[in-house]
């Protein structure tokens, strides 16, 4: 069933998620690439309005876990529920799911042949079928949210890396998602450009957007995340509030935090 076309059902799901049902629930999720098992039984819940930061070394499975949430990777075992849809039974309509779950990539992946405004409004125009006037208003609104109102007519190549990443965030916001995934969104940026992107994400968090972010910015994770999840060798090694970084319970996290700070 197309939920976007059925407001009553959409409201039902919203009221469902607003109660105690988490927006994302991993239960014993496993994922392998060929012989290599990268997720070895993940249990995790993300409630509506919550910000969850996934940290860990490269290869710990954090990006894979994130990509499972919007169906970019299919899980091999366990149960994964996202925005009221089950992703483990192979029946999910991915296009439908992705209208609720946005993602921002490390390499921005903006459309180079389109202006900023066209980048932001392409999907709302084609998927939600909004008109030209509505699209312009939507673009103005989301670009203001990321502080780039004056760049609507520019092409991506005319912007700095930090600005491009903020456009990518605006593009995701324009679909009015219930949840946004951030996959190492500052890893490709120079240190002085990282701040402007992190400030935008922090602002969204403060406005109540539900997010999962894979990040190497420990200070940022500590200050913004409601829940920090430390992954190691395909498992959740430790998780807790921001202060868990001050008092690691495992040698792995202690070492990771020690190297990171």
């Amino acid at each position, binding site marked *: 069933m197309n939920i976007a076309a059925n407001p009553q059902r959409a409201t039902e799901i919203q009221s469902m998620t607003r109660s105690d049902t988490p927006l994302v629930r991993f239960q014993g999720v496993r994922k392998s690439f060929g012989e290599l098992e990268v997720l070895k039984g993940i249990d995790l819940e993300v409630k509506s309005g919550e910000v969850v930061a996934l940290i860990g070394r490269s290869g710990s499975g954090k990006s894979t876990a994130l990509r499972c949430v919007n169906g970019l990777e299919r899980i091999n075992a366990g149960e994964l529920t996202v925005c009221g849809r089950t992703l483990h039974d192979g029946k999910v309509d991915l*296009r439908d799911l992705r209208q609720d779950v946005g993602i921002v990539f490390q390499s921005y992946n903006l459309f180079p042949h389109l202006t900023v405004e066209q980048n932001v409004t392409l999907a709302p125009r*084609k*998927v939600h079928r909004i008109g030209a006037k509505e699209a312009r208003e939507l673009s103005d609104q989301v670009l203001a949210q990321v502080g780039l109102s004056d760049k609507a007519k520019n092409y991506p190549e005319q912007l700095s890396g930090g600005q491009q990443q903020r456009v990518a965030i605006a593009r995701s916001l324009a679909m009015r998602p219930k949840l946004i995934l951030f996959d190492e969104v500052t890893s490709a940026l120079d240190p002085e450009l990282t701040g402007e992107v992190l400030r935008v994400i922090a602002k969204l968090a403060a406005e109540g957007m539900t997010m999962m972010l894979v990040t190497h910015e420990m200070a940022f994770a500590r200050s913004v995340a409601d829940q920090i999840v430390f992954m190691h060798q395909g498992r959740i090694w430790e998780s807790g509030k921001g202060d868990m970084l001050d008092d690691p319970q495992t040698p792995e996290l202690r070492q990771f935090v020690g190297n990171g700070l």
Partner: protein
Amino acid sequence: MFGLTIEQIAFIFRGAGWTIVLSLLGFVGGTILGLPVALARASRRRSLRTASGLFVQLVQGIPLPVIMFVVYFGISIGGYDVPALVAAGIAMTLYSSAYLGEIWRGCIQAVPKTQWEAGECLALTNTQRFVFVILPQALRIAVPPTVGFLVQIVKNTSYAVVIGFFDLTYSAKVINNSTFMPFTVFTLAALIYFAICFPMSVLARRFERRLSRN
């Protein structure tokens, strides 16, 4: 002029006109057939890739004059008497669609996979992703090699002489047969071919430079 009469020179130029007509037929036909070939070659469906790959290999493995013969006499065996222009047009279409299909497949695949992924994550359908995200970027990449291939089409129309199509090469041959001035006549033909092709190669190179600047 150069020992040739105005009428003889005009005759050669008339042949040049038909060379341009056949080139256009080959390009238009090659585009119409080449686009589906490119799509099939880049398709995720194995059967489409194999079928289109076979077609491309077949055409690229046969010399163009032989294709001309096969098409020309193949149609006659079927009991139809077609003008050489039609047979040559079909042969040029087959020939250029195979090469353009391969060129454009490369252009489609040159667009980074992450662009497909970005479109996918915005809930666009496969068709929407292709039309609004991939195709515009592939087209930009495709302009220089496509214009470059036009030059090949123009030059290779000269093979149509084997089935008696009246083009620049044919008309030059006819004038040579009556004047016995092969060097003058074929130098003139060469200059006309060059005059048609040179602007296109310049254009192709200019497009290429503009693309690499962006």
